[in-house]
């Protein structure tokens, strides 16, 4: 669905190659992770894919449109590492904020009902009137996911969405995300630096390396869904994780392209 063709990104004056010749295609309904060390440009790539940054070369199509157009047409749902909620609004109002902008003229009650439905989807209906500072980190991130889903996008683009959470909450959130994915059939692009997270969640992992930033290898993850605690114990899980770890080490050290 999202066919990224040769994305280069250069900063204005120095022409630093942040991303070099990236080819990427994400099938509709797929779950693709961008895995790499910090500073490898994976977040930049996500920004380019979601239209927050303009690529200096190359073209990207999200559902046949440029990312900016796709975002305007609510095809893209964004989730960042921080929940970036509005602290002055309660959970349900936060879920509705983007709809207020995107669906001008839609009745407030209608937006509220839809926001409530999204909260139910992420299991937070009971917390609708709570303020962000009254929610735990994991709950806040669920609200952020509900806000992204409220636009009914085709692609959910997530930039290390669980990076700020503790390890136990992280695993909970991974289960939760897979459940959401199964239920909503959205395409998901996830940026992460956790090998386990990438393997556990995705259908395909794009391993990224630095110097210059590029995609080292696209690794399919043939583990069957639904995945749960057992998945971590499977032999293939360990094999794939080891393979990814080697790739990352190699890509990190090797300067030659």
């Amino acid at each position, binding site marked *: 669905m999202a066919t990224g063709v040769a994305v280069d990104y250069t900063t204005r004056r120095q022409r630093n190659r942040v991303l070099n010749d990236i080819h990427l295609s994400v099938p509709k309904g797929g779950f693709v992770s961008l895995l790499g060390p910090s500073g490898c440009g994976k977040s930049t790539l996500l920004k380019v894919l979601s239209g927050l940054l303009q690529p200096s070369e190359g073209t990207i199509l999200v559902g046949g449109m440029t990312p*900016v157009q796709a975002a305007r047409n*609510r095809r*893209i749902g*964004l989730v960042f590492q921080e929940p970036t909620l*509005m602290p002055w*609004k309660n959970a349900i109002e936060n879920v509705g904020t983007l709809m207020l*902008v995107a669906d001008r003229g839609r009745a407030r009650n209608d937006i509220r009902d839809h926001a409530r439905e999204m909260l139910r989807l992420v299991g937070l209906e009971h917390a609708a009137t709570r303020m962000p500072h009254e929610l735990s980190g994991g709950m806040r991130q669920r609200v952020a996911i509900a806000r992204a889903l409220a636009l009914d996008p085709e692609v959910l683009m997530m930039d290390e969405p669980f990076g700020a959470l503790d390890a136990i909450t992280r695993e909970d959130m991974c289960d939760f995300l897979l459940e959401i994915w199964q239920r909503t059939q959205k395409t998901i692009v996830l940026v992460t630096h956790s090998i386990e997270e990438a393997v556990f969640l995705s259908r395909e992992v794009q391993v990224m390396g630095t110097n210059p930033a590029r995609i080292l290898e696209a690794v399919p993850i043939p583990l069957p869904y639904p995945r749960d605690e057992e998945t971590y114990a499977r032999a293939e899980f360990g094999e794939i994780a080891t393979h990814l770890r080697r790739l990352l080490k190699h890509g990190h050290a090797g300067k030659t392209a």
Partner: protein
Amino acid sequence: MSGGLNRILPAILLIAAVLLAWELLIRLLHVQEFVLPAPSAIAQTMIARQPELFAAALITSGEVVSGFLLSALVGIALALLIARFDRFGRALYPLIVLFQNVPKIALAPLFILWFGYDLSPKVALIVVIAFFPVALDMLAGLQSVDPNLVALLQSVGAGRTEILRRAQIPHSLPYLMSGLKIAITLSVIGAIVGEFAGASAGLGYIIQFASTQMETSLVFAALVEVSILGVFFYYAVEAFEHVYIDWRPKAASQP
């Protein structure tokens, strides 16, 4: 509630001790009242001259409130303009900072010259003194909104004004409140200085007039009244913040 009392009890005891020592020293050393009146003498004056002091406090309060509200308005408007219109902001901001370095109190005689002896010169002086922290703090708030939140709104098609309205202004309110708290104390100072420069009524006028008449206990009585006024206004602003900006995570409560 007893916890609250326990917290302020040491302060109350200290004040009582200072007042007692002050009273004793004045009596033991036979200090003349026009040099330094004893607390008891000040209290007597406060009671005896209360109608006069109260009327003066009302006049000064009128100056403080109108000056403060106008400062808030000017400060907020400037911050919004600078945040919304980049080019205008780049032109205006250095001028405001430059102006901040003018000793505003020195403008008091000019305002008397231009606006006369009543309310308007005091209001003008308060505004030039107090708009700056309002503008500066609110601007800091407008500009420190999470860029990801802005990106999110932009991605679904929000324009500059809509982002200002939906994200930047609400985000800036706690910043605005801390600017307003500075502004309200500056407003009291501005009113008193304005009255020093030329007035026919008000607490500042009483302080100046009484000191030329060697009525030192009246000077102190008016000083006490000004201080009460200042504290009252400060807490009024804080109470306003408490009621209207309840979303700001409360600071960890003291033990």
